[in-house]
């Protein structure tokens, strides 16, 4: 029987990452969509870095940054007693960086499409900036939120290189589904590899299908 532990671990990692990125990426995307600051291109470039860097490069720097001998890693050890490297928490930190552009970029363009007009209209009707954000910008960008969350989730599930560098292959801790497939192939256990790879393929297809069907059946009435 194939061990399904890595599947649950991957789902857990993707869910936690998506949730945290939603909280962190939304304000960043909102700022990027509305700022006229000279820092904007630099921040956008940094946000897009994980798209172009080989995962090994990202993983390498994270490994150094998070290791218990580095300032950040040792600080974490001193307050929690656990290491960030080769742990689930470390994987979450790595995934936040790795999947950042998949959350921020769709949200940024969705917020840009909402435009200043609707937000100004809300302000002119007495809505504070925070109120206008939740009552006008978020509903009008709802499709962007759906796209961003699905892409982030799916992309985190498919993560491999960064996990291998930062997390290694510890069952129940860091052995996510992509790592498990890699190991099954290395050890010539093709049946187990088939089960996980096929499952992942079917899962990814279904998620994307649902997104496209939802977008098609419930088109957002903007215009």
């Amino acid at each position, binding site marked *: 029987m194939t061990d399904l532990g890595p599947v649950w671990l991957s789902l857990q990692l993707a869910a936690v990452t998506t949730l945290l990125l939603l909280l962190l990426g939304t304000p960043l995307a909102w700022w990027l969509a509305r700022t006229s600051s000279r820092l904007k291109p630099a921040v956008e470039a940094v946000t897009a870095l994980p798209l172009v860097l080989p995962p090994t490069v990202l993983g390498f720097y994270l490994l150094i940054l998070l290791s218990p001998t580095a300032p950040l890693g040792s600080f974490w050890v001193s307050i929690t007693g656990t290491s960030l490297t080769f742990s689930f928490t470390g994987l979450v930190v790595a995934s936040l960086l790795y999947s950042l552009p998949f959350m921020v970029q769709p949200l940024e363009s969705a917020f840009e499409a909402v435009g200043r007009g609707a937000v*100004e*209209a809300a*302000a*002119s*009707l*007495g809505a*504070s900036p925070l109120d206008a954000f939740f009552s006008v910008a978020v509903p*009008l960008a709802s499709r962007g939120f759906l796209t961003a969350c699905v892409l982030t989730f799916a992309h985190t599930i498919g993560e491999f290189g960064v996990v291998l560098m930062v997390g290694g292959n510890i069952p129940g801790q860091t052995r996510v589904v992509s790592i498990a497939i890699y190991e099954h192939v290395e050890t010539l256990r093709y049946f187990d590899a088939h089960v996980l790879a096929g499952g992942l393929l079917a899962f990814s297809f279904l998620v994307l299908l649902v997104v496209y069907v939802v977008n098609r059946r419930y088109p957002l009435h903007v*215009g």
Partner: protein
Amino acid sequence: MSVEPLELRVEIDLPAFSLRVNETLPLAGFTAVFGPSGSGKSTLLRAIAGFERPVRGRIALGSDVWLDRAAGIDRPPHRRPVGFMFQDDRLFPHRDVAGNLAYAARRNRGVGGIGFDAVVEALDLAPLLDRRVQALSGGERRRVALGRTLLRAPRLLLLDEPLTGLDRERKADVLAYLQSIPKRFGLPALYVSHDIDEVATVADDMLVLAEGRVQMHGTAAAVMERLDLQPLTGRFEAGVLVEGRVTDHDRRLHLTHVDLGGDVLTLPLIDRVPAGAAVRLRIRARDVAIATERPVGLSIRNVLAGRVEEVLEGDEPAFAEVWVQLTGARIRARLTRAAVEALRLEPGSSVFALVKSVSFQSAS
């Protein structure tokens, strides 16, 4: 209607444009902010609402200070009690008509503004409440936008070219609703427009802007008389605004007679105005010709006896401007200087003013 004045000391400097306004507007009914595009009208309105930043100076409605750079006061838009109607109506597409109205109503409850039902009734919105905003016509959208603006419980309405993009018929329709607002709700309005006809229809007072500077400010009638002195309205737009009273309608020939205080003008039938009602008319200077004797065998029906009051230089070297005092009203004519010389027109000459066309502006 007793309303506090609006103090405007506004300085805005953008790379290619600067705005300087230093006026106190008495805010009686409609104050038109008029000028060509690029003159700063919309920028001024946005500055009052708090959308334009940074602004130096001081903006206060009576004792309620919205901006005072020196005192460090700069209230954000949602804390300024203005109702802003944008030229693109900016209805929220994710809410239906009732939802759009409720958005404003819910956030301004208890401010003692205008009630939901009163707004719905004044603008005839009841049949639209359940509709999606995408299903509304252009005119209906403006009405909903106006209703939403009123539910913000504003102390001042800011209307930024609210009729842009509507066809003639819908314009008249929406304008009729707009016109009823100040009286009905005791609410003053600043009305930005570059359309002299719209301004002539609604304005009680007028502020004329050009290239970011105030050119004129005063009552609409007074400003309109002097408007041609500035190259703002384009050629041939100079004219007068006169008040009159409908005496009767001639249904057979489709005509309406309007008494201008002693002289009667004949106009194409204005159905919607009853006999006895006061109306506002605009007569363009180029539509008035002058004769020294009462002409016979003429197709022009409006021939009014009067006396030349003044002969002024026209906007071009070939033209002169002749002011004629009728029994009650004064009108102006744009003639060639050659005609003035040939007819020997000078102050005191008895003349007949031939009015080729009159445009009806509004019932007042």
